[in-house]
């Protein structure tokens, strides 16, 4: 038992890491579920790429500043999300294509800016995060982002579900569809920006999509699904940090690998369509 809790009772950096990962799971879990249900799972990945140059520009301007990199990432992500969303809404181009176009533009622009400065920027921590070195400012940022996410989701929950399940119906009864879609994309960006401080831009998406995809195998109810995704995220954070501590693995990848293991287990044994239940479906019911 000591091995389970001692790292967190003995070392402050482990406590901070755990709190950070819990905060990320609280926001990213529900966001990931909605991304998955809206068939926008790859949108998170694209947005992570869109954020990278913004964070890099923030780094160039102000060095390793939490504020500058957060603002840079947010600005780049929001611009790409809004432009892609508007193009998809008002032209014939589908959202995946317009998003791909804008995030590639964003990425190219970011790389160009970095090259013009002629600086060999150390973006390792942007790429892979610093979950074991979260300071007070970073923890406050993560907690704020998860709070904003949960409060906003509570506010837009109904139209968001309607927009997911029957957008034509929503359009016929309300004009909330477009604003809700943009607000949701804003939350995706916000959570990715929060996630990159701990896990890096690329792995932050893992805390969004892997718990959500796992939760789909455990519940057929959307509320339960968001709860399961959040719990999987938190649990994976805990286990991943322990694995990292005991086996000297890089912490971010260890957390995401744990989430991946939960995903694989869910595919196998999840009661909602897991492979085990397909192989052994049980006796059929009365007609």
């Amino acid at each position, binding site marked *: 038992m000591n091995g389970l809790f001692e790292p967190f009772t003995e070392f402050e950096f482990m406590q901070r890491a755990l709190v950070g990962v819990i905060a990320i799971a609280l926001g990213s879990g529900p966001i990931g579920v909605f991304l998955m*249900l809206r068939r926008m799972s790859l949108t998170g990945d694209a947005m992570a790429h869109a954020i990278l140059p913004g964070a890099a520009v923030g780094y160039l301007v102000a060095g390793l500043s939490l504020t500058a990199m957060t603002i840079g990432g947010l600005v780049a992500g929001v611009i790409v999300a809004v432009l892609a969303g508007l193009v998809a809404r008002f032209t014939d181009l589908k959202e995946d294509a317009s998003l791909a176009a804008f995030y590639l533009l964003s990425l190219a622009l970011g790389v160009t800016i970095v090259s013009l400065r002629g600086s060999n920027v150390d973006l390792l921590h942007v790429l892979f995060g610093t979950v074991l070195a979260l300071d007070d400012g970073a923890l406050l940022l993560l907690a704020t982002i998860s709070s904003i996410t949960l409060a906003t989701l509570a*506010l*837009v929950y*109904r*139209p968001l*579900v*309607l927009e*997911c*399940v*029957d*957008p*034509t*119906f929503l*359009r*016929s*009864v*309300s004009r*909330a569809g477009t604003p809700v879609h943009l607000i949701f994309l804003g939350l995706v960006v916000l959570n990715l920006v929060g996630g990159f401080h701990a896990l890096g831009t690329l792995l932050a998406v893992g805390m969004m999509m892997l718990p959500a995809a796992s939760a789909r195998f455990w*519940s*057929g*109810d*959307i509320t339960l*699904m968001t709860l399961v995704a959040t719990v999987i995220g938190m649990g994976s954070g805990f286990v991943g940090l322990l694995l990292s501590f005991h086996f000297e693995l890089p912490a971010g990848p260890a957390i995401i690998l744990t989430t991946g293991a939960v995903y694989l287990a869910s595919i196998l044994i999840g009661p909602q369509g897991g492979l085990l239940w397909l192989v052994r479906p049980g006796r059929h019911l009365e007609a």
Partner: protein
Amino acid sequence: MTRTAAAIRFDDVTLGYGRRPAVHHLAGTIEAGSLTAVVGPNGAGKSTLLKGIVGTLRPLEGAIELTAGARQRIAYLPQAADLDRTFPLNVYDLVAMGLWSRAGLFGGIGRRDRIRIEEAVAAVGLTGFERRSISTLSGGQMQRALFARLLLQDASLILLDEPFTAIDAKTTADLLDLVRRWHDEARTVVAVLHDLDVVKRVFPETLLIARSPVAWGDTGEVLSAANLLKARRMIEANDPHAEVCDRGAA
């Protein structure tokens, strides 16, 4: 439900996609409390017309006017509703969406609302299916659930786009009873249909359209062999190199 003033006025309206019209220069009025069928060959612009009425498609020219308040009280059932059947939602929650105009973003769903939901579910013969996931419903059961949602919307203007396609005879008859009930309650109902027997039996008024209007009025007169042939020929005479239309240019 008191008698309402919902009516639609087509002011020489043209609807379409890009510059190509799907509904070309339609003028006329659908009276409040009327029961109107919109018929025509495939590609005649029937579904486009409903999208124009709902407001999800802006006219290329002209206007569609609804009487005051009617736009807030439209219930629209699109063709093969672009509804995600894989979404984790049960029948009860799908039907409850019909309360949107009353409950909105934050309004609670109280005991009276729950009774209304149960009544709507019962009216379409889906009692016992409330907790069933929508992904497990057959086409007919899904259509019944969507009609229950329409019932809850308590709309003065109800637009149905091919509501009985791929539905068995019993379900069609049950849902047609609901359409008759709405008509008796003086709601305005506009339905896009292909089954001319159903149209002749249930709908007093018909708009026959083939991009441009062919005939509009009493169903018996509109659905003459000559009009139907004319509609067919108008659709077949599609011109891929059409000139710019100058009818609306003043």
